[in-house]
């Protein structure tokens, strides 16, 4: 069996993190291709629900990239995100999902190298964590080595299926 390749959804703000990812490209900095980037105007637009849904839909990790504190193009969107993601990680931990699976990073438009490094680190970390142990919406169970952690998200409004 080939090595586990985590799947990542990356919500990147257009002014900083996505521009930083573009710079990584311009500088031809190689990093693992595990993330699908989705560009949004501001990290403040990222709803915690999106992160939860991404994890439920099969993502092993979610990256949120925004501007450094004080540099937000929209004044303070990143501060709002910081609070929301902080809280979300606590909730996820309560639910038995490793909070490390949700990563919030400040990456400026000039930090191409940092973007590449964050991707490297995140992929490594998720490889260590293994596949996410939740039952997926679409009926299939994520394969994975951590049998003990396989469990279903049993929350009102979610469509958890027994493994």
């Amino acid at each position, binding site marked *: 069996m080939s090595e586990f390749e985590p799947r990542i959804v990356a919500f990147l703000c257009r002014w900083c993190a996505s521009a930083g990812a*573009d710079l990584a490209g311009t500088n031809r900095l190689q990093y693992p291709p595990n993330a699908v980037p*989705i560009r949004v105007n501001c990290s403040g637009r990222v709803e915690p629900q999106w992160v939860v849904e*991404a994890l439920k839909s099969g993502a092993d990790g979610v990256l949120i990239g925004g501007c450094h504190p004080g540099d937000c193009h929209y*004044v303070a969107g990143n501060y709002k995100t910081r609070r929301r993601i902080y809280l979300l990680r606590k909730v996820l931990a309560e639910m038995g999902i490793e909070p490390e699976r949700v990563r919030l990073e400040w990456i400026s438009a000039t930090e191409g190298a940092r973007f590449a490094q964050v991707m490297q680190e995140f992929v490594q970390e998720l490889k260590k964590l293994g596949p996410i142990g939740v039952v997926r919406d679409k009926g299939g169970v994520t394969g994975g080595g951590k049998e003990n952690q396989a469990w279903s998200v049993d929350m009102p409004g979610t469509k958890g299926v027994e493994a």
Partner: protein
Amino acid sequence: MPETRPRIGVFVCHCGKNIAGTVDVAKVAETASRFPGVVYATHYEYMCSDPGQALIQRAIKEHRLSGVVVAACSPTMHEETFRRAASSAGLNPYLVEIANIREQVSWVHGGPKATEKAIRVTRAMVEKVRANQPLTPVEIGVTRKALVVGGGIAGIQAALDIANAGFEVILVEKSPSIGGHMAQLSETFPTLDCSQCILTPKMVEVSRHPRIRLLAYSEVVEVSGFVGNYRVRIRKKPTYVNPEKCNLCGECAKVCPVRVPNEFDRGLSLRAAIYIPFPQAIPSSYTLDEENCLGIVPLRCGKCAEVCEAKAIDFDMHEEILEEEVGAIVLATGYELYPKEAMAEYGYGTIPDVIDGLEFERLLSASGPTRGEIRRPSDGRVPKEVVFIQCSGSRDPEHHKPYCSKICCMYTAKHALLYRHSVPDGKAYVFYIDIRAGGKDYEEFVNRAMEDERILYIRGKVAKVFREGDKVVVWGADTLTGKRVEVRADLVVLAQAIVPSPGTEELARKLRIACGAEGFLKEAHPKLRPLEALTAGIFLAGAAQGPKDIPEAVAQASGAAAKAVALLSQPKLEHAPEVAEVQEELCSGCGICAPQCPYGAITVDEVAHVNEVLCEGCGTCVAACPSGALTFRNVGDEQILQMVRAALEVEGVGV
């Protein structure tokens, strides 16, 4: 829309070898052709080239496309190009999206995984376009008139520049005359030219300019509206003197029984209740200061009116509230010196011979209370030893202001130098922390003061200033020799910190713009947008934005004026339509959204309302809405979730 089923075209660009060298573009196109909603997919060498764009335009018409995904370079490169191309082929530009498979795929990955990721990224974008709605930019008209707040050198410069570009300007100044602090200065560093001589011609130009309406003795009460369409209420206080009739004879002031400290001379002289701040004041008229007059309603004195031959005095004058519409606003509300009450350790406010820099300017000025002779306030003697203390209140985060006030090193050198010219046998000492003389010819000027003028510069802070007999004793430390220094001075001049003029924060609140931690008006970006507030259509000039000297204030004012002119010259303003929107039937009016918005674009009554002109499109409010009533045009929640699901699920489509 006539067609309800999406008909999406996917166009994969090779970018020469930039993409095609790593990503199997044919496979991306072939796979994309089987994505739900896709009716046409192809790949081409250079999509951004003319033939590439023509290919897209042809496909839009031939396949009646309802949306386009271009899988190519970063949207920052060619989103505009492809949207324009699609638009000229009859497709709404907001139905075109770019899947970034160059910067974020082909340049950073290799092997089959790169192709797989390119397919995922493209698939996600197809989902986005499936849910995109056609949009039109919001169009706004522009009122071709500007408001300039503050009549110091920055406000004067901005008003003249805008008016000279052909636009009407309203210049509001709260005191009876324009000119600001520059009118109080004696000479200016580093050239030592007379401040009034270079300022007053500009003041006269303002008063004569056919397109400038000067409202002195007036204040901005309220501002509403948005870029290009501000509504301003201005309170014009009564001066009780008709400026058209006043011939400046000055008889009124002579007979006025009241004497109060003269603000223009920083309290070093007295004035009557009816007065002109300084002879060259603009508007060129006397002003009756209601607060200090013995009484207007009912009239208790009236002597001024009795002697006024021009019949200029009108006790029936009353306050007016003017309503004006303007397209742009320039804020140039200037600075004040850090209040003397705050500097107890230097005896300021208790020892009469401890004065601030502006008071010293008035002593130096030929039009000042001593006609330019330097005489100390307590007994009128010419001081033989003068101590100048720099950074008084600046660079002292523990007790006073943390920042450098920027202009004090220069004006202290000027003060000491002018003192030495005026009192050749006098001794001048300057206590300093560092000398910051960054500016054209500035360093040379300070060196001249140190070397040629034999002014003793002592590096160190002053610990205490106190009175002993008729001397003012200054205790300090010379940090270069490590010794204590005591100077028994006749006069001490404090280079007080520069602070925003009183009322700056209140004005900022009225305009819904931000102030920094120290109360200076905050620029939209510290490096790239230093001339404007974050709110569109509001520009910043002069020391209201941060301590600065005259050339800098003038440069910033001209820059702000150029920005204002650029705005006023637009036939119409266009605003991106990708903004937040309220679905009123879902909104409970809880109001959680409103404080999230940095632009004040949300008002809440029964339900929330988004002003689509003020909304800059960050979406922070949308993410905060607990009931899902706030949505974001073309970045909807369900839309994003579909993108996420599609991107994670690509195997299903056969990679």
